[in-house]
C-alpha cells in the first residue's frame, strides 16, 4: 500500500492544465470552451457511447487515450457509457462494414433523442482506404445520419476533443 501511495505522490497530477498544453495551442481554447459547452448543454455531464462499425482499431486506441491521465476527459464532464440507452452522443468509427450495418442501426435506434452522432476518423467520414465495396458501406452517413465529422487516421486525442466541441456547438 505504501508503495502505491508513494508512486501516486511521485507521479503527481499529470493532467495537463489547460494553459500548459501550449504545444497544441488550439487545445487551450478548445478545452475551456468544451467545458462550457458541456456545462451549458448537458448540465455538466456528456455521456458518450462509442461504436466500432468496422474500424481497424487505430481510432479506438485514440478514443481510449481521452481517458488517460493526460487528457482526462472526465474533467470536462465527458464520460463513456456502456449502453447506448444512456448516451447523449455516439462516436462512430470505421467504414461501416456490411456485417456491422444492422448492429450500428440498432445502436442508433437504442440511443434516446436528442442524440448527436460524430463520425471519427477518415474511414468513418468517407470510407477512407476501404471505400465502398461488397463488404464495406463506406462512411457512417451512408447508414445513419451524422452531425459532425472528425478526420484523421487516426485523429489524435487533441483533435478528438476539438471535434467533440464542434459537435456540441451545432
Amino acid at each position, binding site marked *: 500500500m505504501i508503495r502505491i501511495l508513494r508512486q501516486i505522490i511521485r507521479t503527481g497530477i499529470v493532467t495537463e492544465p489547460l494553459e500548459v498544453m501550449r504545444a497544441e495551442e488550439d487545445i487551450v481554447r478548445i478545452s475551456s470552451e468544451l467545458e462550457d459547452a458541456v456545462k451549458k448543454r448537458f448540465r455538466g455531464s456528456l455521456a458518450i457511447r462509442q461504436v*466500432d462499425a468496422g474500424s481497424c*482499431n*487505430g481510432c479506438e486506441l485514440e478514443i481510449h487515450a481521452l481517458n*488517460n491521465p493526460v487528457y482526462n476527459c472526465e474533467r470536462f464532464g465527458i464520460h463513456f457509457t456502456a449502453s*447506448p440507452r444512456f448516451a447523449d452522443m455516439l462516436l462512430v468509427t470505421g467504414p461501416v462494414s456490411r456485417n456491422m450495418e444492422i448492429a450500428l442501426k440498432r445502436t442508433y435506434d437504442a440511443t434516446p433523442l436528442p442524440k448527436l452522432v460524430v463520425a471519427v476518423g477518415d474511414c468513418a467520414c468517407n470510407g477512407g482506404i476501404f471505400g465502398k*465495396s461488397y463488404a464495406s458501406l463506406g462512411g457512417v452517413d451512408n447508414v445513419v445520419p451524422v452531425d459532425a465529422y472528425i478526420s484523421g487516421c487516426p485523429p489524435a486525442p487533441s483533435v478528438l476533443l476539438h471535434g467533440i466541441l464542434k459537435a456540441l456547438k451545432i
Partner: protein
Amino acid sequence: MSMLKDAIISELGSDAKFLDNYQHPLSVVFCSVPKARFLDAAKAMKKSYAFLAAEWAAEETPWFGIFACYRWMNEYLIVKTLTTMDDPTFPSITKKYLPAYRFERQIHSLMGLTPLGHPDLRPWIKFEDWPENAYPLRKKFDASKPMPYVKGDYEWVKAEGEGVYEIPVGPVHAGIIEPGHFRFQAVGEMVINLEERLGYVHKGIEKLFESLSWQSGVRLAARVSGDTTVAHSIAYSTALESMTGCVVPERAYWLRALFLERERIANHLGDLGAICNDAAFAFMLYQLSYLKEIMLRTNHRLFGHRFIMDRVMPGGVTVDIDEEGKREMLAELERISKDFERLVVIYDESSSLEDRVRETGRLAAEQARQICAVGIVARASGLNVDCRLFNPFPPYDKFKLNVPVLISGDVHARAWVRVEEIRESIRIIRFILESMPEGSISGAVDKPPSNTAGFAAIEGWRGEIIYWLQAGPNGEINRCMVRDPSAVNWLGLEQAIPDNIVPDFPLCNKSFNQSYSGHDL
C-alpha cells in the same frame, strides 16, 4: 538440409514436386502435391512436430490452388495442391491440425471450395444475409458492387440440461473495443462452453489488395490492424522485397526494428493496464496508460505519427532519427523504465490482484500446441516460439535476444510475458540506438516478376504475422494472404474459458487481447 523437406520426401516420394525459384525467399520450401496426397503431407508434417502456420486458397484461373504452410523451429514449408472449377473440393486437414478448422471454413465461405471431411461447414466471416453463391475471393466476383440481402440463420452450438442457460454478448460491447459476438453456456456462475462468432469487421481487405499496386498495398497493410500498424507494414514490405530482390539499406532494417519494439512496448503497457483494471486495480491502468502516452508523444515528435503509421515502405523507411532524437529517446526510456519497475513491484505484491489472475483462464501447454498458438499466448503456455529468435529477420540476426517463456498459461502468465518483453524491448532499443549503422534509409523496389510468390513472417507484439504475396501472369497482385496472430489465437480463448466463472471473462479476454480487425480482414 531441411527437416520438413526430408519428411515430405520420405512420405510422398516423387509425388511431391519441389519448385525452385517460385517461392521467395528461397529458404521457404515450396512443393506441390496431388490432391489425393494433401492429407498425407499434413500427416508427415504432424509426425515431424511441425505447426500449421496458415492455410489458404488462391484462384489461378482456371485453377484453384490450396496452400498449407507449416513451421518447425526455423523452417517454413508450403504444400500446394490444385483443383478445378468442375470439382471445387479438397481434402480437409482439420482432423490433423486444429487451426485448419477455421482456415478451411473461411476458404469454404469466401473462395467456395469445399474441404472434404471437415466436421463443421457453417459459414465463417460470411454472414447469413449474404447470398449463398457470393465468393468474394474468386476472380469473377465483382467486389465493387454491394451484395443483395437474403434471409438466413446462423446455427449456434447448443447445450441442454437442467440449469444450463445461455448468455449472448455483443457484437457491440460495453467498452471502447472492437465488435464480436460471444455466446456462453453456463451452469450457475460456471461457463461450460464459449462459442465465438467473428467477422463483424470484415472489410474485404484481401480482395482489396488485388486491386492495388504493389507500392500502395503497404498503406492497406498498415490498416489491417491499427494497433499493429508497424509490424503489418514490415511484413508486407518484407514479403514484397523478397520477390523483387531489392536491397534494403542496413540502417532501414534497424529503424524498422526500432519502430517494432516501440510498438511492442506501447501495446504491452496498455494491455497490462487494462488487465489490472479488469481485476479492479484502476491505479495501474492510469499509471501505465500515462507511460504509454509518453511513448506515443515521443513517436509523434520524432517520427510524425503517434503509432508510426505509414513510416515503413517497401525498400526501407521514410523517417530517420538524428543524435538529438536518440538522446531524447534514451531519456524517455530511462524515465519509463524506472516508473515501470516500480509498478511491477506493486503488481507483484498485490495479493488481491494475484488472487484474480492466477489459475484464471488457463490455456494448457498441450492445448496451445494443438491450436498452433503463436506469440505471447504461446509463450505464456510453454511454447518457445518467436520469429525474432527462430526466423530472425534483420537486424535480429545481429544480437542476442531473451524470449520469456512461462508454463502456467493463466492470465498471470500472459501478463508476465508482457512484463518481461517490455524489459527486453527497452534493452533492444538502447542497443539499436547505440549500434545502428549509418547510411541511407530506403532503396528502390522493382515490380516483382510474374508468376512468383513472396513470404514473410514477422514477430509483431501479438505474435507471428504472415504475409504471402502472389504475382499473377501480368505481374499484378493476384493474391495477398494475411495471417494475423489472432487467426489462430482466438481459438485459444475458446479453449481457456470453460471452467471459469462468467465475471472473469473480460479479464481473460483482455489477457489474450486478440485483434478482431486482423482476424476478420
